[in-house]
């Protein structure tokens, strides 16, 4: 049987894993030890995991993050979240069709709830912020417990194959996210005073200041910390459009988890909604995994992400449609195509601008919301609490690392431990790392055709400086001392030694090198390259493009090389005429995908779109309640059940707020829903303290 796995990757190693076998509807499937059930099913092209009990619509992966409950299956008759549960030898897995039928049981189990235990610091979340805070607390010898709901530490860092932006001096700029995760984890594990519980979900904060934790997915513990640090990251925002509950419409995080963590190939043709850094980078990750990107739509007139990310994607052959929104995901039980349209300044779709693209997956990357409910509850109950990283404010992972460090020390000082004061400039560095993309400088058209020099295709002010440390001659400097200013090459000197370190090390892949020394008419251009080599049969010709993806010419590849000490980025040498050699910024990896023009699809379809996935409540139902005068989301919940499902309003609340805004009602008039425990559903047996080991004796 064909498996949809990634068998080669330009950046990620293909892990050696033990084969096991699971059964899906009686059919024996190969899985890997350590992978989730959801990934094992995806690896066999099984994308529909069951059907919703309310409307019979198909369900599958949506968040791949344990938050949404769309991926429920039955494992040995028990309902489980397939994105969190690991595959195990001999598991019998069935789709969840409607409501589960509880397996019978007659014996009263042995029950012994665990006694609460105390710890000075509890950290929720082992991503960049939590790990960094844990390291600072470990250095100071402060007993700390870090809990993370995944099987592996690192949070979203482990999904990031690209080199990080940011400050070389302050954080790990220039290092890939996956490698930063390993570095931070290694450092944290060198402090045994910090206990680490993986596969352990914080479920609730209670008014007696105890935190309920599902430890290792199997036992319930109450933790009593003196201080809580919430570093739980963020959850993805979503959109309402018809077809939005179809399996294979999912968040960027889910896609990156499947591709970069679990090395499965969830799609052949992907369409991306959202041009922030997350969407742009996910597009790049898709191409690296040899998945075609049919296009990217962004509602704003300009992508919100870094220009270098956008340029990179356009050069690789991805069309970006700004001022466009998604109208619908089309298909019966899986995505067959997507329809987008242009929008006017009031965000209304413009008739006659509809475009449809064939694709089998749609990735939604329209922003993040902080997971701050634990912080809010802790403060409400008088438990001293801090938050760091995305849980505090949505920003880049480099800022999360820095805020984790700061919060770690702040907590130590709060507890009265002798920690050095936090250097004043740390706070300003953190603010700089959080900055949004700044001023765009004009592209300089260089008319210089001799010797050898790098060209910095980097014209937007962003917090990033690795290039300045890469040049052994120190010829690349920032325009000002601020790491957000744009870099410059010192043309006065004649000292470029053609080491190509800047080309290979720029996180934005925005530096090329042009060598006119051998042939001033046909110079050799060095380009960074992070794809499987077989994308280009060696010495073949490639289409070269300028910074924005406009075709310059067809030019021969002379060489694909690896430079010493560089980390997995290859260098291509391309011969090109001097007329445009300086303007070459990349080569095309896939042909742009033309849309199928599908005029006049716009109608009031959006009323059918689902707002509450758990209870399948449509936008039309919520809109009519808003129009009837409802302003209290608790009342909307009462009538429609929106927010009463498994996820507890985690996904729909921001969509309901959005509907209010669309109806012209300011959020100041809207009463927010009450937030109650538990964060995720937990079996009664675990809460009762069933000891399964004793049970089986």
């Amino acid at each position, binding site marked *: 049987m064909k498996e949809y796995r990634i068998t080669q990757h330009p950046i990620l190693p293909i892990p050696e894993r033990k084969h096991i076998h699971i059964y899906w509807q009686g059919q024996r499937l190969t899985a890997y030890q350590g992978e989730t059930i959801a990934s094992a099913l995806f690896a066999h092209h099984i994308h529909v995991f069951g059907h919703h009990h309310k409307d019979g619509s198909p369900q599958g992966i949506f968040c791949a993050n344990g938050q949404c409950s769309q991926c429920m299956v039955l494992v040995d*008759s028990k309902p489980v979240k397939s994105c969190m549960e690991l595959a195990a030898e001999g598991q019998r897995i069935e789709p969840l069709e409607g409501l589960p039928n509880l397996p019978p049981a*007659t014996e009263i*189990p042995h029950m012994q709830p665990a006694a609460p235990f105390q710890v000075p610091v509890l950290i929720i979340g082992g991503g960049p912020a939590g790990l960094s805070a844990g390291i600072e607390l470990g250095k100071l010898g402060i007993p700390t417990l870090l809990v993370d709901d995944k099987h592996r530490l690192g949070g979203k860092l482990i999904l990031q194959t690209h080199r990080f932006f940011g400050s070389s001096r302050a954080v790990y700029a220039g290092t890939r996210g996956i490698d930063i995760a390993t570095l931070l984890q290694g450092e944290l594990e060198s402090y045994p005073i910090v206990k680490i519980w993986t596969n352990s979900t914080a479920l609730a904060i209670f008014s*007696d200041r105890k935190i309920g934790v599902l430890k290792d997915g199997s036992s319930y513990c109450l933790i009593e910390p003196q201080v809580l640090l919430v570093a739980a990251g963020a959850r993805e925002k979503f959109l309402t459009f018809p077809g939005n509950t179809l399996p294979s419409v999912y968040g960027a995080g889910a896609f990156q988890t499947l591709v970069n963590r679990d090395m499965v190939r969830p799609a052949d043709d992907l369409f991306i909604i959202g041009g922030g850094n997350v969407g742009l980078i996910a597009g790049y990750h898709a191409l690296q995994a040899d998945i075609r990107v049919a296009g990217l739509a962004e509602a704003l007139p300009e992508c919100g992400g870094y220009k270098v990310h956008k340029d990179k994607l356009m050069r690789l052959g991805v069309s970006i449609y700004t001022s466009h929104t998604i109208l619908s995901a089309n298909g019966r039980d899986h995505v067959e195509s997507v329809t987008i349209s242009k929008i006017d300044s009031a965000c209304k779709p413009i008739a006659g601008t509809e475009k449809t693209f064939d694709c089998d997956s749609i990735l939604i990357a329209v922003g993040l919301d902080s997971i701050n409910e634990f912080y809010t509850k802790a403060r409400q109950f008088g438990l001293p609490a801090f938050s760091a990283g995305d849980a505090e404010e949505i920003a880049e992972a480099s800022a999360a690392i820095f805020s984790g460090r700061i919060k770690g020390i702040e907590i130590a000082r709060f507890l009265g431990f002798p920690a050095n004061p936090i250097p004043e400039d740390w706070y300003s560095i953190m603010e700089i790392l959080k900055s949004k993309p700044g001023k765009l400088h004009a592209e300089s058209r260089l008319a210089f055709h001799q010797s050898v020099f790098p060209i910095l295709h980097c014209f937007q002010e962003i917090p990033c400086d690795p290039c300045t440390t890469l040049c052994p001659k120190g010829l690349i400097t920032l325009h000002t001392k601020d790491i957000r200013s744009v870099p410059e090459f010192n043309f006065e000197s004649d000292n470029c030694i053609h080491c190509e370190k800047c080309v290979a090390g720029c996180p934005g892949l925005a530096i090329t090198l042009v060598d006119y020394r051998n042939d001033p008419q046909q110079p050799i251009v060095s380009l960074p390259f992070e794809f499987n080599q077989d994308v280009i049969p060696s010495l073949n010709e490639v289409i070269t493009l300028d910074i924005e993806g406009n075709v310059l010419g067809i030019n021969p590849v002379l060489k694909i090389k690896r430079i010493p000490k560089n980390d997995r980025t290859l260098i291509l040498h391309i011969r090109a005429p001097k007329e445009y050699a300086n303007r070459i910024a990349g080569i095309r990896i896939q042909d742009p995908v033309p849309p199928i023009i599908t005029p006049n699809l716009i109608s009031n379809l959006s009323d059918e779109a689902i707002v509450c996935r758990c209870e399948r409540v449509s936008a039309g139902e919520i809109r009519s309640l808003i129009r009837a005068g409802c302003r209290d989301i608790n*009342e909307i919940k009462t009538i429609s059940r929106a927010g009463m499902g498994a996820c507890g309003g985690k996904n729909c609340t921001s969509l309901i707020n959005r509907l209010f805004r669309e109806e012209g009602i300011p959020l100041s008039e809207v009463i927010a829903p009450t937030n109650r425990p538990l964060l995720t559903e937990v079996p*009664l047996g675990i809460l009762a303290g069933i000891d399964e080991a004793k049970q089986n004796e």
Partner: protein
Amino acid sequence: MSKNSSDIFDVIIIGAGSIGVPLALSLSSAGLKTLVLDQEHSVGQGSNKKAIGGVRATHSDPAKIRICLRSLEIMRNWQTTYGNDIEWQQRGYSFVAYRQQEERTLKALLVKQHQLGLNIDWLDTPDLLEVAPDLNQRHLLGGTFSPNDGSCSPLLFLHACYQHAIRCGAQFHFSEKVTGFKFAQNKIAGVQTNQSDYRAKIIINAAGAWAAQVANLAGISIQVHPDSHEAGITEPVKKILIPMIVDIRPVSSSANFYFYQHKTGQIIFCLTPSPNIWGFDQQETSEFLPLAAQRMLALVPRFKNIRVRRTWRGLYPMTPDGFPIVGWSKEVEGFFRAVGMCGQGLMLGPGLAELICRIVTEEPLPEDQETLSYLSPYRKFDSEEKLK
């Protein structure tokens, strides 16, 4: 402050909860100009939404039995009469006995309940297992079964009453807190709120857990003190054959434990703390889930794999003897109390609403005065409710 006729009402009800809203429906249907005031932002946001949804006439006194029999009838026929689905189900209640002392208590009450005409019987273990096959059989001695009792969604029921009351002309003012009353001699004349003034000759206190505070504003002291109970709800599962199960054995810091499967397939469960936790605190505690989970699995081991979705804590407006306080004030003419429902507001609400409406419109049924005598604000409060 405005004094135009739009601020003059026949009746003002304080509290848009389990009592106030059905009452507004009854009064407005009877043609009375009715205003309901509530400090919350929408209907049922005090304790109604905390209720688990059980509706029974299985009590131990004539007043509550009579009122709840009528409530059951109203809810059973609701969809036919009014068209809304309130998630009504008639799956009965069963008070189970695993020890002789509970068997004795329940059987003794049965005599009285039969005298009062309730459809309830004692089922020995094999018969009880017919109606609740998943009950733990070990040490099970049997239990009562009252097939006419049932459950509904408190939220949907109240919202349905609210919509129909509006249709009948009732007005609801939310986010409005009562700050005082106006009097004309010894008679009530109106209500002041943080927003406005309203005039009415009849004011009904249906403020639930906050009833004593409201009464205080009129210079009246009433014996209503809230205590808190926690509850939880699971994910939905396929229908399981089970009525509402009530286990009255005390276990560590809890008295009664009860649960049922709602129409949505979800199991809803609740604990009575012992001793009572008095006060207005409604924040979730860490003790509840492990204790409730253990009590649940001791009754139905099959539930070990069902997943708990949410928990919450709500208030029971308690009276000294566990019976509601319903009736006119002797101190202030026109001031009516419909308070102290002791956590049974949902099941008492619709029946009580009709009764109060008959009193207000001075068209009582022959038995109404007798019913009210048991609930009089001026009774001695010396008996004790056996089936809380």
